[in-house]
């Protein structure tokens, strides 16, 4: 029993990804997002999540997969890591399963176009290949180099 971990499985393009359930606070439907000017392109803006202003990251854009328009299945997965809380836009949230830790293998060099840097490992369950995300790295604020001031008044 100790070796099992509950994960939430979501879809991004053709791949299935997994994040540990204890990092997931909720799964929301798409809703209007307030754009934040002059920030990196994968930060889509902020939403009002029951009174808390929460930043929203488009995972496709984060992993440099081509963006598509949102559909009925598009979801926002609200995750929290340490003091950081953010929403991740994914194509669909598919499943919750118990993952045997022993079935997790170290990541191959390149998986589905996503930099190995963001991957904790891969797991094969029956015929599905799950990619375990390293949320700490995905949510690293240092990647948020805000564009330098283009204009200012002198």
């Amino acid at each position, binding site marked *: 029993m100790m070796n099992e971990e509950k994960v939430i499985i979501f879809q991004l393009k053709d791949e299935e990804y997994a994040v540990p359930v204890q990092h997931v606070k909720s799964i929301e439907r798409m809703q*209007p997002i*307030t*754009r*934040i*000017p*002059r*920030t990196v392109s994968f*930060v889509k*803006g*902020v*939403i*009002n999540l029951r*009174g*808390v*202003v*929460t*930043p929203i990251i488009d995972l496709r854009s984060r992993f440099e997969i081509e963006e598509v328009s949102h559909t009925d299945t598009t979801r926002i997965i609200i995750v929290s890591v*340490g*003091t*950081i*809380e*953010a929403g991740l836009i994914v194509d669909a949230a598919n499943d919750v399963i118990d993952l045997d830790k022993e079935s997790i293998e170290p990541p191959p060099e390149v998986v589905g176009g996503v930099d190995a840097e963001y991957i904790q490992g891969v797991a094969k369950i029956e015929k599905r290949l799950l990619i375990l995300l390293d949320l700490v790295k995905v*949510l690293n*604020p240092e990647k*948020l180099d*805000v*564009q330098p*001031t283009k*204009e*200012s*008044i*002198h």
Partner: protein
Amino acid sequence: MELTQYLDIFIEESKEHLQSINQQVLLLEKTPGELSIVNEIFRSAHTLKGMSATMGYEDLANLTHCMENVLDAIRNNKLDVSSSVLDVLFASLDHLEAMVVEISEGGSGKRDVAETVKELEALEKGEVPQSMQAEANNEAGSLQDYDQYEKQIIIQSKEQGFHAYELSISLREDCILKAARVYMVFEVIEQIGEIIKTLPAVDMLETEQFGTHFTLSILTKESAVDVKERILKVSEIDAVEVIDIKADQLNISSNSEREENDKLEQQEVSPQDKKSGVQQTSNAGSSGKTIRVNIERLDQLMNLFEELVIDRGRLEEISKSLKSMELNETVERMSRVSGDLQNIILTMRMVPVEQVFNRFPRMIRGLAKDLGKKVNLEIVGAETELDRTVIDEIGDPLVHLLRNSIDHGIENPVVRSSKGKNETGTIYLRAFHSGNHVFIEIQDDGAGINKQKVLSKAIENGILTKEMSENLTDKECFELLFASGFSTADVVSDISGRGVGLDVVKNKIESLGGSITVDSTEGSGTIFSIQLPLTLSIMSVMLVEISREKYAIPLSSIIETAIIRKEEILSAHNQKVIDFRGKVVPLVNMKDIFEVPGSTESGQHVPVVVVRKGDKMAALAVDSFIGQQEIVLKSLGQYLTSVFAISGATILGDGQVALILDCNALIK
């Protein structure tokens, strides 16, 4: 006995007592002969001793006990208040403070105080003959005898700012209705204070069983002269003599120290007495009743209220769209009530800056001593109130600035007198309200900032190039002090000048939503001016629309809004400007700055919001004004920490998030 539940109270009260001892000792330094101050200190120390002994903190109790002995020696004129005595007292206070802090952090309050105890004991033993005591007793002899209970009332009301007077009133020999006159005198006094004792007793006065003379002891806030004048207005009064009752006279009149200690102890064990005494005096007027509330509860209240403000906004929006008279009225009423509620909650969280300022005189004294400088700290406006959260954060930056002023600002006494200045330097610490802001200024009459030194240091540290340095204004030059990694002290001292400094101060103040500026005249001093918002969480903003995005601009930075015609936009150095009331003000197109998607065509008229930062202005071109609104400031969270020109976000009535503009970032 289960003591942990009293721990919080113990810590709070100990802090208060230590604070009051601190203040009183400083006062004592200024007026060494004033025995009433010594008594004050004695009382606080005694209470502290009792409390800590009850709680089982022996070191704390021991040390206060030794302090008490020294104070007692001073009180009985066995010991003079010299600077060495004060130093030891301050040293003991430092120990006490450290112990209380340790206890509040969950420690045992143990500390090696042997040395200070020894010093205290040595002081105490350096005693001289006890000849003075009789004299003091004589002095007290002129007063009536007060019982313990009455003394307690007098002492407590004195603490609350009342004066205690003994009035000797003589009626004219030919006075017919003596009781009526007495009644009239009573009435006069009851208007301005309270009578605590009469001689002869009241019923004897009423039945005219006295000669022409009677004595009253009263508590009042009026001055002796006023009291006298008021009483003399009653006809047939021959003479009134007003004697100020000094608290120390009350204590000294008791025979021996031993007895008095017993009495103090008695007071401690009979809180009933004490309480009724307090009640009596509070009936007399001014002092309000207070309760202690955990700050967490206030925070919760604030959070709940913030939710309410958001819902109020939503309700206002709904009622506007429904156009129902009844609903409108109800919503308007609710808005008014919640407005009042907001004021109350905000003022509840306000505390006087005194809390922070109080520890500075001590600190300045110590620093000045260490550095061999003479410094006088003048505090103005300590009663100015600020939000609790700001108070908690502002202490360290102020300490830093004050240290700076002493270390870099105020010169050595020798240098000062050679420059024709008073040997003692003065640092003014001022706090005052202005509009929606509180200003705190730290001004010294020291050397001022040497511009050349600042520039060469900045170049040396690579903050600035030589070419850039040539056409800097004074103000821009002083701003360099806030650049990170900057320190102009020639010698790195213990007090300041480690290169971490003013930039940290600046960051801290900006994180509180404030700003800091510095101005200086070489040779005659420097002034640091800090501007802080009154409160952190709720503010008034102007909502504007840019394309289809809504932004909030804090009212505090708006000068006015205007609608200008296209032709009025001029161009200077590739920068669009407008003529605003005779001034050339740069025009900022928010749509470009924020890269707002959508068409850029606009009509013949451009709505602009004129904002300011210090004395600089800018006009922000927007698409339309939505209106003024109270909003709750929310942070963007830990993930988005440095967003350009956005200071936070808020949730609007329709549930959408609107971003709050940071005008300071837009004006450079």
